[in-house]
């Protein structure tokens, strides 16, 4: 099940999008998401679609990879569509027993589904083209202003990167423990949900014990290597904006400008399907 989740996975390639500064990409993705929710007119959606398609083409990430990102969220998507379809009041176009579907409902359902799918596409495009390390570095740099209000930005970024480093190790360990417990007669497959969850306790306890031991070891090793927190630390790979990053910013500005234009042009026409 864990392998099905493609959100948060990196797809190695050498496209322009991959080479962009991660900060630019994060800002771009945020801008895209905000635009999705602020400019909900047909022209806006058309523009978003165009933007998304061009970005996916530039990224060189295979389209089916991006579509796979929806898979774990299919139920959430269905739920949203169904609720919107049946519960939005308005002029009913279909009525049967207690179910009524209004034109507004259909519109809302389509809009919400589109929004969610675009949201997933946009964010997974970000993670497909950005290594986890670049991402944490970029977040650290973007959140730096928060240091003024005593948010331990460096520490949070360090924790994130350590967590990322230990995910495969702990997964492997989980596998090992499960095999060891199976060899001793533990049963993880049969029974109902509650029984299954209960049967995970003999896996979780040793996993936690070992995770704490690892954390202790790692802390010692970091201390031994003169780590004293973010103060006085330099960066081996400092983030620096290149020409292409400024161009990307310019491109985003154009996108935002066009989005605003669609809003101004569309403002008098009530949105209808």
């Amino acid at each position, binding site marked *: 099940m864990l392998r099905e989740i493609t959100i948060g996975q990196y797809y190695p390639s050498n496209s322009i999008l991959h080479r962009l500064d991660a900060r630019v990409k994060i800002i771009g993705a945020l801008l895209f998401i905000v635009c999705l929710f602020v400019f909900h007119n047909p022209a806006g959606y058309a523009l978003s679609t165009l933007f998304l398609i061009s970005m996916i083409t530039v990224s060189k990430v295979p389209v089916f990879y991006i579509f796979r990102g929806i898979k774990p969220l299919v139920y959430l998507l269905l739920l949203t569509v169904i609720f919107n379809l049946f519960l939005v009041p308005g002029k009913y176009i279909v009525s049967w027993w207690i179910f009524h579907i209004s034109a507004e409902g259909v519109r809302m359902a389509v809009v919400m589904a589109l929004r969610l799918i675009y949201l997933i596409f946009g964010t997974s495009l970000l993670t497909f083209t950005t290594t*986890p390390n670049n991402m944490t570095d970029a977040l650290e740099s973007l959140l730096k202003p928060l240091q003024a209000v005593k948010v331990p930005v460096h520490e949070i970024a360090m924790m994130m*990167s350590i967590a990322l480093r230990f995910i495969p190790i702990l997964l492997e360990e989980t596998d090992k423990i499960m095999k060891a417990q199976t060899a001793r007669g533990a049963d993880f497959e049969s029974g109902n949900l509650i029984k299954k969850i209960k049967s995970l306790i003999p896996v979780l306890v040793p996993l936690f014990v070992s995770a704490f031991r*690892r954390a202790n070891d790692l802390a010692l090793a*970091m201390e*031994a*290597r*003169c780590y*004293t927190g973010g103060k006085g630390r330099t960066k*081996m790979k400092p983030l620096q904006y290149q020409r292409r990053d400024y161009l990307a910013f310019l491109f985003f500005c154009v996108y935002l400008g066009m989005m605003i234009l669609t809003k101004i042009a569309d403002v008098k026409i009530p949105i209808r399907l």
Partner: protein
Amino acid sequence: MDMINASKISYSYERIDEEGNTTERVAALRGVDMQVQPGEFIAVLGANGSGKSTLARQLNALIAPTEGTLYIDGMDTAKEENVQNVRRTTGMVFQNPDNQIIASVVEEDVGFGPENLGLECNTIWERVEESLKAVNLYAYRKAAPGKLSGGQKQRVAIAGIVAMRPKCIVLDEPTAMLDPKGRREVIRTCRALNEVEGVTIILITHYMEEAIYADRIYCMDKGQVKLCGTPKEIFSRPEELEAMQLDVPQATKLGYELKKAGVPVPDGILTIEELVEALCCFH
């Protein structure tokens, strides 16, 4: 100046119950003396629980002695203001390679120490390159540590220490979790660092074969240094070693048994080659 000068250091762990009272004191070190000159290769041998890991942590100022004094390159480790400098002077490599690699890319992990020292970006890159070359892993600089073998991972850890340019490297059972090939790689790297770069090496191990390359060996038992001398001196006393639950290298053992059986082989044979040579002299 001595690289390491320990006189009568003791350390005890406290066992604390839920209310925070000390219920028990477990003495891990009892009056250890140790003098190490710059550039020496020292092996510390000892069975489990003999206090050798505690000694290693003392050398890196991760813990300070509860009694006695410990000077690293002239700095007293008990003084708070010396701690960071002591850690710059003596680097430390731990047992589990997975638990001491911080970054998800080899070169970034090697750069972690220099980053902490606050070096310039260019200097960091120079040092990373240099130290990866020193442990013969330059080709793997972009690899993910998880994809490397145990021996390679441990060499990454060593490179991470070398990049901080310490005068002395303490290795706390670096080979305990490795296969024979990985063990050889790590020991070869240690010897190269010692011989080429002149780094003082303190190798803590329970593999006797690894200790034969050392200039001097310290044998520890129950928190005390019981024997100290050159490998030849140490390994010609197999009975005393056995009393400490330590072995002698196989070639040494065979030589010793042969001598007891009346074959006139010299004392303190360390390698198979030496033994072969000694036996061939009879013909």
